């Protein structure tokens, strides 16, 4: 029996939901904990950065990083953990593609600091504190983990769902590891596992979730909700569509979809109808599509840093 593998879990710019998501494993979590040794997990055990620094290189079997990279400290920590780890896993939507905090890339760092703290704000130590007590500097943009270090595997989701966490833990504990770069979710679209039926194949209106109590059996896109199911990986069991909410794409796009926003534009362009197609319908079609008020935020809710390099920048 080999020694129990050392596992680390670290959070960068996240909400803590990924750390909590392990609890969804239920009693199975106890079996997992019995088979591993926790090397570092700030949310769970009292280990310090100095404990990690003291470890030999590659002595952690796997480090699961959740959260977007937003501060200089985040970057330092993930480089340190990369050095000490055999495998690094991007855990959750933020580490995978930037996540919800990545939407901040639509504003420059200066705009964010001014908005949050007023004109002329500079990070400084607390009164009477040492210089090193100052908050870490904010990066110019939020980044995904792979922007900074080599990532071996991905467990997507916001937060990752128990079946997907189970796939990763199963691979780590059995030692039966997939090829580097593997994403622990399905390659097929979420629609494949959605129980709703698709009949219309037309988008005749666009409604937001609060504007409609959807029919429980009919495809949400058919009912006018912008559901990202067609371009999003399955694996979550279509949890949101089953509950009457459109998929917002937290598991990330299927390998075939590529850029989720552009794939959705292609799909919605085909589906949208405002009466008989032709010049007479153009104005009505435009009004229909205008009801999709924020395409960028809708299509890249969890992935803006991964796909949109072009947002507002200080040098543009």
């Amino acid at each position, binding site marked *: 029996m080999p020694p129990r593998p050392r596992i680390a879990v670290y959070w960068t710019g996240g909400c803590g939901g990924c750390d909590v998501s392990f609890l969804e494993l239920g009693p199975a979590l106890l079996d997992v904990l019995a088979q591993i040794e926790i090397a570092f997990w700030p949310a769970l055990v009292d280990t310090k950065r100095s404990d990690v620094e003291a470890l030999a290189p590659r002595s952690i079997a796997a480090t699961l990083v959740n959260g977007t990279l937003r501060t200089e400290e985040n970057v330092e920590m993930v480089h340190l953990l990369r050095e000490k780890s055999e495998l690094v896993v991007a855990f959750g939507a933020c580490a995978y593609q930037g996540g919800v905090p990545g939407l901040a890339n639509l504003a420059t760092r200066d705009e964010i600091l001014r908005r949050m703290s007023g004109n002329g704000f500079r990070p400084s130590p607390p009164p009477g504190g040492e210089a090193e007590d100052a908050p870490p500097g904010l990066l110019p943009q939020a980044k995904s983990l792979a922007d900074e270090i080599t990532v071996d595997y991905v467990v997507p989701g916001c937060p990752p769902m128990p079946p997907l966490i189970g796939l990763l833990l199963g691979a780590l504990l059995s030692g039966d590891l997939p090829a580097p770069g593997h994403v622990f979710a399905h390659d097929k679209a979420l629609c494949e596992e959605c129980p709703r039926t698709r009949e219309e194949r037309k988008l005749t209106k666009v409604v937001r979730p609060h504007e409609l109590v959807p029919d429980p059996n009919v495809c949400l896109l058919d009912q006018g909700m912008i559901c990202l199911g067609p371009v999003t990986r399955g694996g979550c069991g279509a949890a949101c569509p089953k509950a009457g909410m459109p998929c917002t794409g937290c598991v990330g796009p299927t390998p075939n979809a590529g850029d989720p926003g552009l794939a959705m*534009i292609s799909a919605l362009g085909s589906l949208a109808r405002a009466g008989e197609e032709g010049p007479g319908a153009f104005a009505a079609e435009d009004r229909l599509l205008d009801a999709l008020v924020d395409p960028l935020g809708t299509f890249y809710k969890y992935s803006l840093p991964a796909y949109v390099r072009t947002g507002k920048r200080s040098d543009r």
Partner: protein
Amino acid sequence: MPETPFEPKIVAFLCRWCAGAGADLAGTSRIAYPANAVPIRVNCSGRVEPEWVMEAFRSGADGVFIGGCHPGDCHYVSGNYKTRRRIYLLKKLLAEMGIEPERVRLEWVSATEGAKYARVMKEFVAELKRLGPLHLEREEKTMPASPVLPRVGS
């Protein structure tokens, strides 16, 4: 000021039935128009994926032109209508990204409209000169395989 004036790079997707024939007519009629566009013939403007437009920008284009058949003339009945809705949405997305939507231009050009093709291309070049260059750099990822940013054709 740069020594040489800015010459915008344009990728032009032209449908083979109408706009492509129109562009050919502009040439065989010896109508002078700016040589900024690299034409790519496609069977239908409806085949032009939004992904291709962004790929053109990422590859260094300052503008993307899409030429299709006039309404009612599409060889495939409704490909141009799909294109129109896609480009409408894409422009909304570009505006949110901080890219001027005017960098994408959709025009209906029939096979007899060589003069129109030359005119809209002149207008487009002038518009892009006014907007200036678009620098959309690619950034390489350190992911071993590339599940993060799949490329066209991958």
